[in-house]
């Protein structure tokens, strides 16, 4: 206890120095809290938006389909299997899909388009697309010859609600697949790949047109969040264990780019954080070293009076610890205040909109205010502070009381 009081008083013998060092810590802590909060908030959004938009948390596919997505790599009894999965995991957000390609023609234009067969009743539970219909309505569950298309596609091919599209493609058996569908809805997702190049129709119509029987290519499973998905994953693996031709894929496998983009961003950000942490470390090292050197005489006296070098070393470490804790709490507090402000008002800078659109993000970011966002950066700075104090504290061990007392 006495050591603690000594350390506290020592700190305020030179208030300006202590405050400047504290200032460096608070500055860096605030920046780190803000940046880390922003990053975590962004990753969450990126993952959630991408998964919710289309791919879902998990997919069951025929083995090999993910590497080579081809019409003939389908699996049988898809809707039944989807129903079994639904019952087994007690979750409605399970939906089967089939994917194909067709040349779509309106009265005046022809474009190639990705055709997706979906279960209209459950598709809205695994994807946000059905909710993003800006004209008309989504597919109804009555399996009519209808389709919904992306907004850019609709504009390019010049169709409106109620117009007909002729689709020509090739079926699973290589036969020609042709049909006419009525456009009942146009969606606008903001994801250019989908808006430009996607047509959805009822799965039953798809199976009929593309000679798919009762097959499909994917069963998409959406969970409330990433943690829930992990639990569901093990349950489904158990369910499909007796189907060697089926594979369960997690979101990282389904979106390899997303995971790596996050890793790339995270590692380049940590390089920057590392530099700031090292700079604070130098600042602390300098301060503590100076304060130790100018107290050589004093240390000589207390050593001569019988204090062990170890305890004197502890005083120095305690000084850094106190300073570090003060920096930690003030920095975390200012950082939290900053994050909370932006969490409410949103944070944006020019060019963000274009970049955001590329990663399914809005133009404004909301930093995360969580325990990890608030303590990760300041914690690293605290550790750097303590590490920096070790060298000066160790120097005290080498002091000879008599010589030290004579020092200027």
């Amino acid at each position: 206890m006495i050591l603690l009081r000594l350390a506290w008083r020592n700190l305020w013998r030179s208030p300006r120095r202590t405050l400047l060092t504290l200032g460096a810590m608070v500055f860096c802590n605030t920046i780190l809290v803000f940046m880390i909060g922003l990053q975590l908030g962004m990753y969450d959004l990126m993952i959630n938006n991408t998964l919710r938009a289309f791919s879902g948390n998990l997919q069951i596919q025929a083995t090999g389909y993910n590497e080579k997505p081809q019409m003939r790599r389908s699996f049988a009894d898809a809707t039944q299997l989807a129903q079994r999965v639904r019952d087994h995991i007690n979750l409605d957000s399970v939906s089967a899909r089939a994917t194909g390609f067709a040349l779509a023609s309106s009265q005046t234009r022809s474009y190639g388009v990705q055709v997706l067969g979906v279960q209209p009743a459950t598709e809205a539970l695994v994807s946000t697309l059905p909710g993003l219909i800006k004209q008309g309505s989504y597919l109804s569950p009555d399996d009519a010859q209808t389709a919904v298309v992306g907004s850019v596609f609709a504009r390019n091919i010049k169709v409106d609600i109620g117009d007909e599209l002729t689709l020509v493609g090739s079926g699973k058996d290589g036969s020609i697949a042709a049909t006419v569908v009525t456009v009942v809805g146009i969606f606008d997702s903001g994801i250019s790949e989908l808006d430009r190049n996607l047509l959805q129709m009822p799965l039953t119509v798809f199976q009929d047109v593309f000679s798919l029987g009762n097959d499909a290519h994917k069963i998409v499973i959406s969970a409330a969040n990433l943690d829930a998905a992990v639990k569901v994953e093990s349950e489904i693996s158990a369910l499909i264990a007796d189907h060697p031709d089926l594979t369960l894929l997690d979101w990282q496998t389904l979106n390899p780019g997303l995971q790596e983009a996050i890793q790339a961003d995270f590692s380049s950000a940590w390089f920057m954080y590392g530099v700031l942490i090292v700079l604070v470390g130098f600042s602390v090292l300098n301060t503590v070293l100076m304060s130790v050197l100018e107290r050589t005489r004093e240390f000589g006296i207390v050593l001569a009076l019988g204090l062990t070098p170890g305890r004197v070393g502890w005083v120095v470490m305690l000084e850094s610890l106190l300073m570090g804790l003060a920096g930690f709490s003030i920095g975390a507090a200012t950082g939290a205040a900053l994050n909370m402000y932006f969490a409410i008002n949103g944070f944006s800078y020019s060019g963000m909109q274009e970049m955001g659109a590329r990663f399914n993000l809005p133009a404004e970011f909301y930093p995360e205010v969580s325990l990890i966002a608030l303590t990760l950066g300041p914690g690293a700075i605290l550790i750097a502070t303590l590490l920096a104090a070790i060298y000066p504290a160790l120097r005290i061990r080498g002091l000879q009381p008599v010589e030290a007392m004579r020092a200027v």
Partner: protein
Amino acid sequence: MQTPFLMLSTIAWRNLWRNYRRTLIMLLAISVGVWAMIWMTALMRGMVDQMIKGSINNLLGHIQIHAPAYRDDPSIVNSIEPPGPELTDSLNRPLIKAWTSRIRVPAVISSERESRGVTLVGIDPAAEAALSFLSESITQGSNLASADAPGVVIGRKLAERLETRLGKRIVLVSQDSDNTVVDRGFRITGIFEAELQTTELAYAFVGRDRAQEFLNMADQVSEISLISDDYRNLTHLLENIQATAPDLEVISWDQVDPYTGSMLAVMDGFILVWIIVVFLALSFGLVNTLAMAVFERKRELGLLQALGMQPGYILLQVLIESVILLLLGLLAGNLLAWLSIVPIQDGIDLSAIGEGLELAGMSSILYPVVEFSDIARANLVVIVLGILASLLPALRAARHVPVDAITRP
């Protein structure tokens, strides 16, 4: 009167080394800071530069000329006549390094097994070579020999998806100028590999004349693309070309591809913020070190003043001390940056996170780009703001009242 500058410098230099540990730690901090500024900037620049060059190379060019409705509706209906004499003259000016005209329309490509949507690009291979990636990216077979060469060149990934290969036939289906669906078989005479998979999947290249004949479009084209000597300053050129082609849309690459266009501005802003943040983190240490140095010399400075040294000289002396410290730190930092950039000049392989970079439109080999202006900016920020920061302790040193300073321990 002899200038005391030399004397002050000598004193400042010796003062620095009175407490060499402190000076060395500060030097280390400054050089790490400067190194981080330059290193990070070089990598960022490299990334953006490569992204932009990659996009420009990817059939973007510096300036594109289309029918006004083409960008919204890139169909054969919005084709344009080939450049007339006036526009040709304008395009042949020395400022423009190369130009070409292309057909670029959506199409469907089918092998016996699979079909996919692609962009059918009709090119004049001779002119195209100076503008885009194709001529350097052929890995199997050969490039189209001329604008009326038979055959089609597709990407490696597309061939894989279609389960076809060099020498096989594929069928291209598109819409001709009368809105009739037309199809024609082409033999694959070349396969290209690009840095980005999306590029390999996106295009099917055929000869321009063949495409015109296939699509019944006489000698019309979809777009004219050109490159000048620098992608940054295009305003003047844009205006000139617009004047000779008033009915057409003449736009620069950053309008065609706003994502890549915005990267340039975002990066510039980011680099400046990064430099300033690092400097601020440094400046606390710098001010602290100088303040300590001044504080422990309080008596000595008072004595000097009592002996008749002007406060201005004391200020100058502290500033010189700071400048020497900053300059040494900058020297070491720049050296460190140079030493760390030279070994990676030939590129760092980041293929471990390749798909993530691809999502951002970057390739997986990163080449650092060292621009003089970036280095100058980092050095300038450190020295100017450094001197500003050290004014505080220097002014304090100069303001000591001599008698007080000497008598108080």
